[in-house]
């Protein structure tokens, strides 16, 4: 299969690379535009969404990423990655922009400060066993548009995972808990999409 690109501007990209490595799935680091050539999927990692947004502009990646997403490149965002895939953002900074792609509204830092961060097992549509997830100053999805399906919810009903076609966005970090099921799920999405 074509390698999955992992956006390596800032954040926990190393954990994503290691998770795919554990699954035997080839990856490539994306820090410049050339890194986007020949990839079969793209991961936008956890990190600080305002910083990844800025760096994607500074290093000339933003327009190419938006174009690839619109052409159907399978894309997977965790936490800050979900924020960057949202069409609309609540509680962002004044200048903050997103790539878009998911027809949802995402609220940044929706749980509060670091003291409100937590780990929990979450049911995930399409994965048989609950996924062990870390929510670190995590966002939530507050509204979903047409064609968006919910893949993960908390017990109180708050939406923490959505999929729209080839785009998957989740509030949490399976990559820091030793969890591989969601990465396997995304790799399967990439295989079927055959971008």
């Amino acid at each position, binding site marked *: 299969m074509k390698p999955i690109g992992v956006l*390596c*501007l*800032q*954040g*926990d*990209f*190393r*954990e994503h690379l290691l998770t795919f490595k554990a699954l035997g799935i080839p990856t490539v680091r994306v*820090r410049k535009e050339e890194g986007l050539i020949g990839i079969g999927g793209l991961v936008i990692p*956890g*990190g*600080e969404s*305002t*910083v990844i947004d*800025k*760096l994607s502009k*500074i*290093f000339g990646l933003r327009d190419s990423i938006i174009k690839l997403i619109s052409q159907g490149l399978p894309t997977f965002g965790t*936490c*800050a990655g979900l924020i960057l895939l949202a069409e609309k953002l609540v*509680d*962002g*900074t004044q*200048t903050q922009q997103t790539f878009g792609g998911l027809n949802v509204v995402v609220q*940044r*830092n929706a749980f*509060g*400060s*670091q*003291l*409100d*961060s*937590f*780990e*929990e*097992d979450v*049911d995930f549509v399409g994965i048989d*066993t*609950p996924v*062990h997830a*870390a929510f*670190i*100053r995590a966002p939530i999805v507050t509204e979903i548009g047409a064609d968006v399906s919910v893949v993960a919810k908390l017990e109180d009903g708050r939406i923490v995972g959505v999929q729209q076609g080839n785009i998957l966005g989740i509030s949490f*970090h399976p990559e*820091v*808990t030793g969890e591989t099921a969601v990465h396997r799920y995304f790799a399967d999405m990439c295989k079927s999409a055959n971008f």
Partner: protein
Amino acid sequence: MTEKSNDKQSTPLVKRGLAEMLKGGVIMDVVTADQAKIAEDAGAVAVMALERVPADIRAQGGVARMSDPDLIDQIISAVSIPVMAKARIGHFVEAQILQSLKVDYIDESEVLSPADYVHHIDKWKFDVPFVCGATNLGEALRRVTEGAAMLRSKGEAGTGDVSEAMKHIRTILGEVRALSSKSEDELYVAAKELQAPLELVREVARTGKLPVVLFTAGGIATPADAALMMQMGADGVFVGSGIFKSGNPAARAAAIVKATTSFDDPDVLANVSRGLGEAMVGINVADLPAPHRLADRGW
């Protein structure tokens, strides 16, 4: 369906997790809400609230303490990125206050005047995560034993001289490499020499890395300094006086952010190093009399 575990807050995974998200980023010292905003706009991954930047603490002398809670509240309101704040070494009440203010991380820092010359804070008692400084692997592992969820090499704060930061990161990561080449039966003496618990020493020897994220700090003043630390193997950088004691803080902050991401690309580093105005006025660490060296605080 498999039985689920309950929500768990403030677990080691959750505490260390935030540090994982800060990797590849720059954490900037700020003393006012305005500075915090400038730092956020320049691309800081987090800000560190303190009373005075280290260069001023050094110049003015006196006892350096936790910031005024009003100031910390203002900084938390001004930005959307994580806010860290400094407590004195061993001052667990300052830490209790900072936790009550809901800062995202506490830095138990040698930059402030120590409150206890023997004991550090028992960081396991807190829900908020801690970052601590270290000059060598033994010190780093003692801090992790006390509950630190993130480490930073100390360097020599407030000098603009990167040589101590270099010494400390070389020492820490060199000692990690040395440990991973030892045989199992050599680890007992290694633990004794490092003055660190055997279990942690075994973990480092087995994995070849520290159990928590390691940033670097103390004397970083230019984009090249930040890239140097990243090439040495730091997970990210703290910049203290280097930004707001320079000629053009916003431009210098943004340049250091770019250099930290593109640390291995000399063409980018050349570009971002241009036209930044004056760097902070430095002090050579070699000229500092021993009692004025902050890195010696902590044990």
